């Protein structure tokens, strides 16, 4: 019986009087793709925010890769091997594609002042190596972008921005990837292509686990191994998609909430 990669136990997060996450137990195994679904406001993004240290947990604990990350800062969580994308795409718009991806690569870049300012030849080697790595990654999702690595991201259409955001999250070779509605604003074809690319990357990185928040059930059905359904911050169902899709409570939550 393998240890879970991520284990949230009894997690609670309140905002004033609102309980956004209500005694949540959620586990993610290594090399697993878990879908996190539920109506708007059910706590999915809040869960990501708590895991990545943006909000603290009021109660409960989170363990990752054997270590307790409940009180960890966002930095520590990243360094432990968790990367994410954001619901509202949060790229640095004036910066280039390459720059944005490199932001995600922080832990693999040398940060010393002397190195960066004085050892320019060595810096150039590191820069070129990382340029190649970034290009390889972008090539998977949208080869046309590889020629545009030094264009500001602001000029790209939304779908390309989402792809770059995913590249930013992947470049540091995380163990766990948290995707928050990656296909928002995309057409059916674009979504399918995106999911193909994600599966391709995952194939190249054995051991990578993914938690994906999605509203498109087709995506969930296709790529997830297992789903967790939230409503009002509480887990109301868990299991493979086909199993939970027939669950009465789940149907009511979605229909009732709309």
């Amino acid at each position: 019986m393998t240890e879970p990669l991520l284990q949230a136990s009894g997690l609670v997060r309140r905002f004033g009087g609102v309980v956004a996450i209500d005694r949540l137990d959620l586990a993610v195994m290594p090399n697993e793709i878990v879908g996190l679904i539920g109506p708007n406001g059910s706590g999915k993004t809040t869960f990501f925010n708590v895991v990545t240290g943006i909000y603290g947990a009021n109660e409960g604990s989170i363990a990752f890769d054997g270590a307790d990350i409940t009180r960890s800062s966002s930095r520590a969580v990243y360094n432990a091997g968790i990367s994410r994308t954001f619901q509202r795409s949060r790229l640095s718009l004036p910066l280039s594609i390459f720059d944005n991806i490199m932001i995600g690569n922080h832990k693999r870049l040398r940060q010393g002042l002397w190195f960066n300012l004085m050892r320019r030849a060595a810096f150039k080697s590191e820069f070129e190596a990382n340029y190649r790595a970034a290009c390889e990654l972008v090539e998977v999702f949208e080869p046309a972008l590889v020629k545009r690595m030094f264009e500001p991201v602001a000029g790209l259409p939304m779908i390309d921005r989402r792809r770059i955001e995913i590249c930013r999250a992947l470049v540091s070779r995380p163990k766990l990837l948290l995707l928050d509605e990656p296909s928002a604003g995309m057409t059916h074809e674009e979504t399918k292509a995106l999911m193909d690319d994600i599966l391709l990357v995952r194939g190249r990185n054995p051991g990578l686990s993914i938690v994906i928040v999605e509203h498109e059930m087709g995506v969930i059905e296709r790529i997830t191994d297992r789903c967790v359904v939230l409503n009002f911050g509480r887990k109301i169902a868990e299991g493979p998609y086909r199993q939970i899709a027939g669950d009465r409570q789940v149907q009511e939550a979605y229909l009732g909430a709309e």
Partner: protein
Amino acid sequence: MDAGLLAQYVTNGLMLGMMYALVAVGFTLFFGVLDVIKFSHGDVLTVGAFAALATFVGLRSIGVASNPVFLLAMLVVALSAMAVLGMLIARYLVLPLKSAPALNTLLITLMLGTMLREGVRLFYPQGANPKPFPALLPASSVSIGYFNLRLDNVLMFAAGVLVIVGLQFLLNRTKLGLAIRAVAQDEETARTMGVNFTAVVLVTFAIGSALAAYAGVMNGLYYNEINFGMGLYLGIIGFAAAIIGGLGSIYGAILGGFLFAALQTIGTVALPFASAYKDVFAFAVVILFMAWRPTGLIREKISERV
């Protein structure tokens, strides 16, 4: 120290606190409604004070001699002129930059403040020098025990209290106040509820600027002198007071204003040699407080959507 001296310090502290509170409330109003730090607020106070002075000089030159008339005219001119100025600032400088980074609004109002300040220095006759401000309130005083309670101070303080109470009434008991509070809490929702956002912003700026003008006149009456740099000083203190009280909270701003005045007074009492350092002390307190509790005693109402 004797009770008389203590009472004197307390009176000074209260008057100072009232003035700081008036400025701080303005800052908090602007921030609440537009998430904007209007750095020109203090300098609007200066312009208001000088507008009042100009009114006085003008009226006196045409033969007016009645103090109540002077006072009324000065207040009317200063408050309405600054209300208009506030609306112009909102309409042409702040609202256009609504979608730009907040930094730009901060910078533009900072530059505007400089323009106002320099404008007074350059264009008001002998603006670079401190100008005497008339004493228009009754100068009598009442002896209570060991010290003299000056009537004009009492009147000014009472008037200040009235203004604050009036503001609270406006905000909490009128439809306009409701609209302002709605916009302050959640602009989008307020709009969908039919609130005219632009109108609310303009009115809020008008109110805030009128408050500044009032504080400026009060300042002039209290010190019997105004100078072109007074707003910068009061603005910094007022801003700090607003932050201490938690930006966005009216009560907090008032609390912050009086708290700051109390600190300043205590400092002057505790270090009597350092009256020249009064200002240095004030600024040091600002810096220290920001180091210790920058979100204020009452939490600043920020919500960043992640």
